[in-house]
């Protein structure tokens, strides 16, 4: 892997999903998080993360082949011991839209038939997923190519006895067996359709794949037993079945998997990844309810400290260490011949409104002029009191400087002038909301703005900040608008969710750009138990898609708030609504609803300014 020729490398800035990375690419770019190490344990886990948060990367990295490569090529002692000592063997099982589509299009099946089909398909899918892991284990625990080949043949033969009860088949290796199982799944689909279209199957025709029509995961357990016997895997080994993208499954499917978590106390543990609020039920089929903390644990990826950790020596966590490391890894592994390895700050430059710096705040300074122009009288008075003291920086300048610059930039925007404020490394990282996929999309959107001349300059390292602030801001605003617009066709709630997010964003925009500036801007919304069912549903979907983020306390970071709490608008939407992407104060959702019910005159009154009155959103849009 280390000698992977450059010509075979892909531009990883164009691959924003771990699902589409090769094993080598994923292992080389993977940044182990707290959540990842937590999952290496003999417990059932339900992993919660917004879309793009890295759930698939986590689930794939737990699988034995990926973990073995991580152990071999990176200095990760925990991974090394897990592989060397046979502590954990993970299997990656995706339940993607296409796979689920083959279940949900059988609308004619009754509940019992649907449940049987789900179990049948999960059985065969888990066996298909087991096969590459069996190969990986053979390579890891059997010495010598000849012995490995012999073991594989033996395992293939044993597995075929259990998994292929129909006669007339012979398989030389695991790949052939895998292809047969894939074909069996396809034939099952066809057989069900034949039965429906022809009004029944011909007399004597047996159901396809009889071996998988038994208890859930019984064929997989049989496979694990065979492999363990052949390779003398330690009895203490914990097997992890990582079921990815469970948000695509139905409530009934979750109930079936829950039942399994509750009822089988052996060495097979489940790691179910899904979006927040998309573990649809705690019910089981065995009369008892799954208990969080006892039968399983939630792992909330969104509150992972590795994602939010600050760069050593910096005063805040806006340009996270994770973001900078990810950029570096993508550059290193991508086809970036001649680039050297520039840092994200070298490529994108600094961020005027977010970078910590010591600004001039003298009486005649531009900053003080801005403060006097835009700040509230209370803030100005406090600034005058504190000026010259060390508290001025902590309590005034650090908190208000970016807001003043943003207000000025938007105020002065006229005609064809280009906004430049949403640019720089810290801005790019901040507006990704610590979401790796969004971060890669932002990096890619900005890098695509590079002209060929800029690319040449970059290769030659002629200067830093190759992409202009205006180009970066344009790319960020385009991506921000696209993030919002893509909500519109969302199943079930699209237009309502779009309108809801616009309502929040427009309120925050109005509050920021029309009221006198203070040291704390509105960026969050609070709800309590009085929240309507409709709004609560929209908030849940928004959290799942990374449009809102719950402010989660450090006491119980894995628990998602239920019908009460504070949620901040995704920083990804800040360039669209022209907001400052910093954590600020919250207002009640009811206040925002009331604001939007007001007449224009009442809105103007509500936003009463000491220095000007402006109409809100006369043209119906912001940008």
């Amino acid at each position, binding site marked *: 892997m280390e000698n992977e020729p450059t010509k075979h490398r892909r531009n990883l800035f*164009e*691959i924003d*999903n771990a*699902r*589409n990375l090769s094993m080598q690419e994923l292992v080389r770019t993977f940044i182990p998080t707290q959540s990842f190490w937590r999952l290496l344990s003999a417990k059932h886990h339900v992993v919660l993360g917004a*879309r793009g948060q890295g759930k698939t990367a986590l689930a794939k990295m737990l699988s034995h082949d990926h973990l073995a490569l991580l152990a071999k090529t990176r200095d990760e002692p925990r991974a090394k011991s897990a592989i060397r000592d046979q502590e954990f063997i993970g299997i990656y099982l995706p339940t*993607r*839209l*296409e*796979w689920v*589509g*083959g279940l*949900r*299009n*059988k*609308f*004619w099946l009754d509940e019992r038939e649907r449940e049987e089909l789900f179990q049948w398909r999960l059985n065969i*899918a888990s066996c*298909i997923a087991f096969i590459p892991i069996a190969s990986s284990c053979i390579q890891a625990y059997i010495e010598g190519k000849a012995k490995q080949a012999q073991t594989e043949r033996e395992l293939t033969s044993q597995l075929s006895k259990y998994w292929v009860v129909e006669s*007339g*088949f012979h398989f030389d290796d695991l790949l052939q067996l895998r*292809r*047969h199982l*894939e*074909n*069996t*799944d*396809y*034939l099952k*689909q*066809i*057989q069900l*359709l*034949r039965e*429906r*279209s*022809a*009004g029944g199957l*011909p007399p004597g*025709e047996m159901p*396809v794949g009889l071996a998988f029509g038994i208890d859930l995961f019984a064929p997989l357990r049989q496979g694990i037993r065979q492999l363990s016997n052949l390779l003398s895997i330690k009895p203490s080994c914990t097997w992890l079945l990582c079921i990815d993208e469970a948000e695509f499954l139905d409530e009934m499917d979750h109930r079936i998997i829950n039942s399994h978590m509750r009822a089988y106390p052996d060495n097979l543990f489940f790691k179910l990844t899904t979006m927040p609020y998309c573990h649809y039920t705690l019910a089981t089929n065995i009369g008892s309810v799954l208990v969080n903390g006892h039968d399983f644990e939630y792992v909330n990826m969104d509150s992972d400290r590795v994602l939010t950790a600050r760069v050593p020596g910096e005063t805040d966590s806006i340009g996270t260490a994770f973001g900078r490391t990810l950029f570096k890894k993508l550059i290193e592994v991508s086809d970036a011949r001649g680039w050297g390895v520039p840092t994200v700050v070298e490529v994108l430059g600094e961020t005027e409104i977010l970078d910590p710096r010591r600004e001039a705040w003298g009486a005649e300074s531009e900053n003080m002029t801005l403060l006097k122009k835009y700040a509230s009288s209370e803030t100005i008075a406090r600034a005058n009191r504190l000026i010259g003291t060390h508290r001025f920086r902590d309590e005034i300048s650090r908190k208000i400087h970016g807001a003043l610059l943003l207000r000025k930039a938007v105020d002065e925007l006229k005609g064809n002038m280009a906004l430049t404020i949403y640019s720089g490394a810290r801005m790019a990282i901040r507006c990704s909301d610590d979401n790796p996929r969004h971060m890669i999309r932002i990096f*890619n959107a900005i890098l*695509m703005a590079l002209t060929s001349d800029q690319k040449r300059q970059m290769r030659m390292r002629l200067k830093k900040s190759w992409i202009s602030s205006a180009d970066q801001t344009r790319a960020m605003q385009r991506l921000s608008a*696209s993030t919002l*617009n*893509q909500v*519109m*066709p*969302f*199943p*079930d709630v*699209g*237009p309502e969710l779009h309108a809801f997010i616009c309502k929040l964003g427009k309120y925050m925009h109005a509050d920021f750009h029309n009221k006198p500036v203070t040291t704390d801007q509105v960026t969050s919304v609070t709800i309590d138990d009085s929240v309507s069912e409709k709004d609560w549903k929209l908030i849940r979907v928004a959290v799942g898609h990374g449009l809102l983020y719950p402010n989660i306390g450090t006491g119980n970071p894995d628990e998602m708030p239920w019908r009460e709490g504070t949620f901040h608008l995704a920083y990804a939407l800040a360039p669209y609504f022209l907001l400052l992407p910093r954590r600020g104060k919250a207002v009640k959702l009811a206040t925002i609803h009331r604001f939007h019910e007001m007449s224009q005159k009442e809105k103007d009154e509500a936003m009463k300014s000491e220095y000007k009155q402006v109409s809100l959103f006369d043209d119906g849009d912001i940008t």
Partner: protein
Amino acid sequence: MTSLQVLDIDFESVCENQYDVSLFASGYESRCIYVPGLLNPRMIDNPLVFGFTEEPYSGNRPKNDVFYCEKWGCKPIPLSGDNEQPIYDHLREHTQTQDSPLHILVDYTSMSRLWYAAVLNWARFAVLGREVIIDFIYAMGRYEEVKRPMVIKDMVTIPGCEGRAYRLRESVAVFGLGFHGLASLCVLDRLEADTVYAFLASPGSSQEYVEKTEKTNEDLINNYKTKTLLKLPLASIEACYRHLAETIAPHRPDGEITLVPMGPKPQVLASILIAMRFPEVACLRVSGAPDPLDVTPTGDIVATRVIVRAETNICSCPS
């Protein structure tokens, strides 16, 4: 094994042909009676008309129902766009006593894709050892301005087009582009494909629609994952079928290929035929909430002959 042959034909030859069964649909679009208005009822032994149970009183629906009663002597059989069982039942009832090749006419101008996919599935699986010749007819349309973006109701594979959802190599999505660009982007986001192809109808029913489709789908067309934009003639399903087969060829048999036809029905039909031809290819049905906009006929007709020969029971074949 099942073989599928796809041929473009003239509408004149359709008018001269004698059919065992025909399937028509009654919905809210005014164009749904255009083709039945041109055909001679004497040339069809068993005409069947299915009427959507969704939006049963919208637009031109009452008028269309009256037309079918008067010209074809058929009262539309109520059927949901999400169900196809009665189509199988009626086809069985009207064709079971014959031995010669079956001739079926399907006017899919205003049909649910589940319905015309069912006719193909029936020919593939329920009629063994006998040739089924299906003539598919489509009346091109002029659309009312789309005012609301599509809100996705469901995304499921079309029965018989499930593909093999266990990939060994890359995942490929092939989007047929229509007037709902945001919906296509939403599906792309969920499919998470690493290679994307897009195709649109060009020449289409008008140059205006070609431009509109390109504009509406600008983001998907310019997406860095989109390798090629294919312009395929709306009037030739044979050409569309061939080009799609050539496009996906480099990714077969190990790539996970999903077709997402969001554009005009002839291209949906071509996509369904591709997925039925290649077991590793899936075809997704993205349905939206009903939006009863009228579509009037332009007068142009797309006629396609699909010849299906199902020789053996494929479930008994070793892989």
